[in-house]
């Protein structure tokens, strides 16, 4: 059967994460196994509108497959306009995911804006396999308080012994936390050099990577999840080329030394 034929998945729950972002929980209708790694993505179909890449937001350690979807175009609008019970198409998982086997025990996870969606998979994975990791810190920044995702989970991360720093660009009276850049959060952490996982706008990635390298991280230990236009997900259509690499197969997670020239 063609690689392009998706599996069917029913929407079992829709949560609002921010005014334009939704957390969608899915159940695969074929009841077959769906195994994946943090950092991988799926191609999601709304039949009639088309297909687009969405990173997996849930951790494979938990039962429900979840996708965090921000309104950004025709297809993502189509997905979030669905209701519970509607059927979507899913292909994947695709991409390499975070190289957990190669990553050091001490990990810092830094996300900016909607890029944090894919990192949540890694955070919850660590929470559920806490013993396998050492010092773990999460630094996450969004534009405003309303734009922060997964607010109800921060506490559970802290309870698992993870340093959690949250910051916003624009504060208001309802926001008591940090205002400023993600890099400022990193300064607050007591960090021992290890691995890093970053996702966000290119400017933020570069700033965080530079800061971490200043703190003794090796650039090959800094892993960046890259966003690219994708259509096939399987290294054929060429939309997602980053130099000689395909973000869909060789990525979306790259070590910083491989991609810093294009960031």
């Amino acid at each position, binding site marked *: 059967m063609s*690689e392009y034929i998706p599996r069917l998945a029913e929407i079992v729950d829709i949560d609002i994460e921010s005014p334009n972002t939704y957390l969608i929980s899915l159940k695969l209708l074929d009841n077959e196994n769906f195994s994946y790694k943090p950092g991988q993505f799926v191609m999601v*179909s709304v039949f009639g509108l*088309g297909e687009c890449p969405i990173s997996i937001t849930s951790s494979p350690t938990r039962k429900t497959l979840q996708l965090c979807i921000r309104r950004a175009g025709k297809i993502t609008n189509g997905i979030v306009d669905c209701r519970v019970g509607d059927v979507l198409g899913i292909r994947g998982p695709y991409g390499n995911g975070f190289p957990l086997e190669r990553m050091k025990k001490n990990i810092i996870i830094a996300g900016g804006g909607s890029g944090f969606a894919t990192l949540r998979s890694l955070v919850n994975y660590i929470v559920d396999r806490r013993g396998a990791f050492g010092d773990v810190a999460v630094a996450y920044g969004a534009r405003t308080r309303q734009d922060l995702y997964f607010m109800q989970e921060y506490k559970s991360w802290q309870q698992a012994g993870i340093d959690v720093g949250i910051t916003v660009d624009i504060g208001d009276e309802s926001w008591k936390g940090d205002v400023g850049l993600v890099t400022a959060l990193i300064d607050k952490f007591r960090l021992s050099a290890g691995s890093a996982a970053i996702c966000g706008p290119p400017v933020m990635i570069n700033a965080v990577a530079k800061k971490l390298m200043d703190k003794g991280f090796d650039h090959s230990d800094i892993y960046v999840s890259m966003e690219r236009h994708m*259509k096939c997900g399987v290294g*054929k*259509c*060429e*939309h997602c080329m980053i130099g000689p690499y395909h973000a869909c197969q060789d990525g979306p997670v790259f070590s910083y030394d491989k991609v810093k020239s294009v960031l």
Partner: protein
Amino acid sequence: MAFLPQERLVPLLTLLSDRMEVVAPILVEGVPVFASWSGQPLALKDNPLMPPQEFFLPQREVLFRYIQDCGSYSFEEAAGKARLIFGIRPCDLRALAVLDRIFGSDPMDQSYFDKRRSTVLVALNCNEPGENCFCDHLGFGPTCSEAVDLQLTEIDKGYLVESGSPAGILILKEHPEFFLETSQSHLLEKCEMLGQAREAMNSCIARSLPGIKEAIKKADWNALGRTCLNCGSCTFVCPVCHCFTIQDLGVPDGERMRCRDTCLLSGFSRMAGGANPRISQGDRMQNWYLDKFEYIPQRTGLLGCVGCGRCSRVCLAEMDRWSLEVKR
């Protein structure tokens, strides 16, 4: 190996066309094209502008149909059809070898290989290079360097036929009445013909792989980008280019289409949020060249250019595609 007398070619194709669709270069209003052949005069002088790549990767094709029923979906795929392509040239065959490696990499592209497997390829070696051809400068051609079901070389009064696959051997075995024994002189004749073709090519165009690579290194991409007319022609005629997009047609039932795309459009790499990693036309042109001469070789071990010269024939901006010099 066998000898096919000139006058037996059409009867042989006629016989084969009973079993499968025969595609061959024919004239449509005088324009040479690869199309279904049903006895029209063959147009074997020039390689058509559009390579036979489209029989494996059409400009538009249905990947599958989706059929909605009570909120859920079922899918239908079309079956590949048996086909014989007569007259594919060594450059276009080489391009298929590159595509085979790309579309065959894991996970394999079923839709491409369905067509690939159900197609018999009969190649025609080039006795006379076209005015833009330079395959020899890239280290192959004008004879087939790839495995092909059958390859023909035009020699005096007919064709030298060499088989390269079970399907090819089968055609020779099943239809012995068409073929004559070959002799050493036929082979010599072939070598001489192809040697002449090589010479003709080398004397008319001074192009070399190191020269092209040097030009890519030195090119002023911004200046070139400013004159590019965004027509995409160089990518649409290239037998190696294979960028595609996927698109749905129809609700609630409809078709998921694979449509030919071009990396020279800004929307090709632009992301949903609006950010674009290849923002200028110069960036996109540079990427096209780097892909052909660096990235594809890294991925497949083969050059992403086959020296067919089609891109220089169709450039709307009248660029010199190989020196990459900016005129004024």
